[in-house]
């Protein structure tokens, strides 16, 4: 049978002190946790720090708390834990009053970081410390030796670069009319979606130009011309900034641009930005002139930083023919769409 001296005490089932900072010579607060092993009526907890540490001896500075967000999940707030009653820089012992503990329960509390504890002057490992509970008569209930370490630097500086970037995506490079062109109806293509993502602070712009300002048939040599009022020619002029309305039975061909998604944050499609008035068709018959030079079809701007996180516009071509439009199966067009971050 082992010899057990009178007054001998057992260690906690678990005990630890986790300081907020491990860096040497740094002011810190900390977390104290212990799981009692011995039945007793605890009335205080004594934390002994390593001899290399410096304790502020103003006990009132050693305030404590044990809120749910401050102690680890699964632990219990140390009952009636109170601001330290003493803090001795000679013995390195801080004494906190606390309530009776139940064996097998992990109790925790945190102590303040301001004007309380300063870690060792130099980095060192395995510096001895202890946690001890006592009764009101200062009889030890549980006591466990622990080790604390300090390092030269306990922080990692993380640096990263977010480069300026502009992403322009087209959902496809082909846009097919829903059906054969028909003198009784205005026919539209399925549409192609352009998506813009950019951290350009000045927003973005999109332009479009057309290869021959109309739907061209090589078989017949005929061009179903675009329509709309303009200055100069469709090849290199300037449209009037007003949408044109197609009428079934009358030849015409236009580009309609719709704001499909104004992603949250950053730039907005609000006036005077957004879809260019020339192309802002709001019915299935409206659109703007398909010019041979680049025309702004949409832009997104606003108070800087006017970034865009997936703004989308949809490009739809609409065409109407007359009864006399030459028949052919090869009417088609080439539209070039360019996007850029604003200067």
């Amino acid at each position, binding site marked *: 049978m082992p010899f057990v001296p009178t007054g001998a005490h057992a260690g906690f089932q678990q005990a630890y002190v986790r300081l907020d900072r491990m860096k040497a010579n740094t002011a810190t607060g900390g977390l104290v946790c212990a799981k009692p092993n011995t039945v007793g009526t605890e009335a205080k907890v004594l934390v002994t720090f390593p001899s290399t540490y410096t304790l502020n001896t103003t006990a009132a500075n050693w305030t404590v708390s044990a809120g749910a967000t401050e102690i680890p999940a699964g632990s219990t707030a140390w009952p009636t834990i109170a601001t330290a009653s003493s803090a001795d820089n000679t013995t390195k012992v801080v004494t906190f009053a606390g309530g009776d503990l139940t064996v097998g329960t992990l109790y925790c509390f945190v102590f303040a970081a301001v004007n309380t504890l300063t870690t060792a002057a130099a980095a060192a490992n395995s510096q001895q410390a202890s946690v001890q509970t006592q009764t009101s008569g200062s009889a030890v209930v549980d006591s466990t030796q622990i080790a604390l370490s300090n390092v030269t630097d306990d922080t990692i500086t993380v640096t990263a670069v977010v480069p*300026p970037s502009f992403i322009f*995506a087209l959902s496809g490079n082909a846009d097919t009319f829903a059906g054969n062109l028909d003198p009784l109806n205005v026919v539209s293509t399925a549409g192609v979606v352009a998506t813009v993502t950019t951290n350009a*602070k000045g927003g973005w712009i999109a332009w479009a130009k057309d290869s021959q300002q109309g739907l061209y048939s090589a078989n017949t040599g005929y061009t179903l011309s675009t329509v709309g009022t303009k200055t100069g020619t469709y090849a290199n002029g300037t449209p009037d900034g007003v949408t044109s309305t197609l009428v079934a039975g009358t030849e015409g061909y236009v580009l309609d641009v719709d704001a499909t998604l104004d992603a949250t944050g950053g730039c907005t499609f609000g006036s005077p930005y957004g879809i260019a008035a020339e192309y802002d068709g709001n019915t299935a018959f409206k659109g703007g002139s398909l010019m041979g030079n*680049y025309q702004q079809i949409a832009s997104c701007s*606003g108070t800087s930083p006017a970034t865009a996180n997936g703004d989308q516009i949809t490009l739809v071509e609409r065409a109407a023919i007359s009864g006399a439009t030459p028949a052919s199966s090869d009417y088609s067009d*080439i539209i070039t769409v360019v996007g850029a971050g604003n*200067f």
Partner: protein
Amino acid sequence: MKRLFLGLMVLAVVFGNVIVAPGAFAADAKPLTLQTSPLPISLSADPGKSVTTDLRIKQNGGDTEKLKVSLMKFGAYGEEGKPVLTDRGPADTYFDWVKFDKTVFDAPANVWQTVHMTINLPKSAAFGYYYAVVFSRVGDDVRQGGRTNSLSGATAVLVLLEAHNPNAKRSLQLSSFATEHRIYEFLPAKFRVKLANTGNVHGAPQGDIFIMKGKKQIATLSLNSGGGNILPQSKRSFPAAWSDGFPVYDTVQEDGKTKLDKNGKPVQKLKWDWTQANKFRFGKYTAQLFAVYDDGKHDVPIEAQVSFWVIPWRFLLVLLLVLTLVGFGVYSTVRGTVRGVSRGTRRLKGRR
């Protein structure tokens, strides 16, 4: 037999051009995603010298794509200074100064490619030149055929080049400083600063708009914090908005996107954040613009101010109505009490 065969061939050709099965020409729409970096590039150099810059491009499709580089120019036009992209003109010999280390290249998916751009300035170069380096996929700008249009997507990196010259004139002038409305019911109050570049090189103004109530500064709005440039002989508008109020109109967001109305414009909704109730705005305010630009020697100030009112008239009408009703209620109560007391007094007198 030979005649029958020829007849069938003729029929096949004729009907082949007339009868088109639905969807027969539905083309394979190949998506394209291009990412470029950096964004607008500002370069400067002495005439007779060279200047270089790296342009980075990445395509995010699944397959390796063949991309091409082409050169265009950009400018600004109109009262708002709208950016315009233009093909090379007959007099644009400065296009010949530009060399790329590659103009057509294979771009594997999600791998950055670097294109080295060198501009060799002749000794005659002076002031500003504005290039747009355009990246696109080879083969997208070819005709697809029947019933299908081709859409060729491209991204442009804008390059602003200044050729140093002692006669460079950097001059910005205020064209207008205005509020969207003179009277607002609720914030935001929106401002527009329009500046004209009357010089011969681009310039970027920066500054603040101070919102004052009497002599007290209420808010500070940043002007052109993004460093946007104004091209020579053009104008540009810079927006600013003061939205630090209660209540305030806010853009409606749904499922991570801005809600748009049927005209594609953002839908606005009045937001009542009672924690901001101390920012209830009412009365006359003054917006003071203080901006500067660098004329090459020192900062030149641009100052202006505009006044506007915030009058939450509907809110005040409701408040007035409530106060009227309360006043009427108090009046009725007091009147009833007084009448009751009078009747009681008369009854007492009658009994006597």
